[in-house]
């Protein structure tokens, strides 16, 4: 029996979160087949082998170029049937979640998302999922034969053993009705580090006073190779684009380091960052609630501290 992993690709690369999903499936100890959808180079797909896949099915049809939910769900369900796979693993993402939900309903499968650890199979099959926006966990049992596991970032360590997977063309059977939704255009920053995937995040809040001051946030982010984020009011006022908004009602991040500058640390903001490995807070108010959720803190004026920190980091890199 094999496990199927849905792998997403962006800008000609397999997403890191998808490679983590492959490693997760490999750690479950069964043969792992991945499925990639839409046009992407075969040589890129071979790299899934390094994370633990023995084979990659590739549905390369150019009609599947953009992330269309219904046809993607159908392709995955057909691939599961072809492989006899009873388990599907995928990474949490804005495409993966709705696709997996449809696959679950098609296959009458239990679907648990936000899974933070490998399954416990000592009696039955249970997984630990993050709930209440990271404020707690629930251990749940999956009672159906077919199972879908949506994993959170860092649920397992990424395996990189340099192996190569074989790539096999996959021809799904789709009809026009699957393409009822038309994507008319995409408006996407190319080459930007994606916030949900980022290992380092530099985020600014209302303490930055205005969009004209974001240069120092960007400089710091660039120096670190970090993604940029912000608090909700900042994107509400339009200082920053909406997809940068971090928190309960925004993006949930789990980087190695989250740097919060001029953000008070309201509980709704913390909900989006509480699975960061380390948190650094820079705030001029020593009473700011964010400090009690932080690992490192500096009380000071961002306009003074941030440029100095960027300089010090640059100096340390040389």
């Amino acid at each position, binding site marked *: 029996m094999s496990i199927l992993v849905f792998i997403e690709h962006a800008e000609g690369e397999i997403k890191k979160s998808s490679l983590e999903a492959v490693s997760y499936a490999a750690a479950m100890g069964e043969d792992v087949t991945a499925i990639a959808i839409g046009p992407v180079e075969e040589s890129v797909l071979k790299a899934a082998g390094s994370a633990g896949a023995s084979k990659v099915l590739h549905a390369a049809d150019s009609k599947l170029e953009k992330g269309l939910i219904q046809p993607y769900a159908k392709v995955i369900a057909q691939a599961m049937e072809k492989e006899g796979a009873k388990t599907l693993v995928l990474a949490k993402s804005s495409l993966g979640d709705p696709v997996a939900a449809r696959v679950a*309903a098609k296959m009458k499968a239990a679907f648990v998302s936000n899974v933070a650890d490998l399954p416990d199979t000592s009696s039955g099959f249970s997984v630990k999922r993050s709930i209440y926006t990271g404020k707690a966990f629930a251990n749940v049992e999956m009672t159906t034969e077919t199972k879908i596991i949506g994993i959170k970032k860092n649920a397992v360590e990424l395996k990189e053993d340099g192996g190569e997977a074989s790539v096999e063309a996959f021809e799904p059977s789709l009809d026009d009705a699957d393409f*009822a939704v038309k994507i*008319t255009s995409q408006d996407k920053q190319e080459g930007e580090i994606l916030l949900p995937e980022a290992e380092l995040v530099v985020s600014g809040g209302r303490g930055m006073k205005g969009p004209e001051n974001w240069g120092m946030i960007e400089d710091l982010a660039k120096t670190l190779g970090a993604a940029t984020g912000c608090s909700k009011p900042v994107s509400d006022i339009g200082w920053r684009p909406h997809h940068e908004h971090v928190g309960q009602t925004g993006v949930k991040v789990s980087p190695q380091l989250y740097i919060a500058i001029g953000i008070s640390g309201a509980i709704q903001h913390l909900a989006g960052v509480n699975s960061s490995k380390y948190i650094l807070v820079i705030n001029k108010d020593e009473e700011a609630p964010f400090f009690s959720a932080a690992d490192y803190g500096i009380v000071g004026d961002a306009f003074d501290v941030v440029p100095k920190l960027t300089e010090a980091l640059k100096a340390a890199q040389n």
Partner: protein
Amino acid sequence: MKILVCITHVPDTTAKISFTDDNTKFNSDGVQYIIGPYDDYALARAVELKEASGGTVTVLNVGTSETEPTIRKALAIGADDAIRIDAEPTDSYFVAEQIANHAKDAGYDLIMMGRESIDFNGGMVHGMVGELLGLPAISPVMKLDIEGQTAKLAREIEGGKEYLELDLPFIAGCQEPIAEWKIPNMRGIMSARSKKLEVLAPSDASEAVKLQQYELPPAKGDVKMIDADNVGELVKLLKNEAKVI
């Protein structure tokens, strides 16, 4: 236009999360309940669409009688009537089947939900209902306009947005900035009392996921404060202690 809005009844975003009964029950002591914030966006946009071009807004919740004050609040915000399917919403698939079984023959032009519930954060009920009804389900929707039978919408994707077009009926999992949250006014609160809230028995549905036990994350260690004039020290800590740069 006939719109269905599915709402959750969830702890307020500032609620402290704890458990009782050997970590098998949520401790609702002193917890305030609200309409799920994303569901609240869906509801606000539904009411706007109705105000602009007529029709009705029905709200639906799968929950026990405890959720009724939350449902009344949705009526006060501007929904015309409400349905409660009387069951404990333990599993997303179970909830999706309840919603789909109700909506199947009810003739809704549009079903609006939140992008995700803030208790289980599944982000999956809309997709499941879509599959069960054979309809498209789009999420997370940040903009939704309707002209005749066609909808134009914007969906958030990593790093940007995607613009879509499709025909009614379909399901939308909504998030900001689709509309601004609406606060009920006095007139809304008064009229909500007499609006119809129908309680339906659940349909037969299977449960695919069973709760075993809750768990709280480990407590955070103390914060290390660094002097603002000593950023060099911070760089050293990030490099050698945290090893993140």
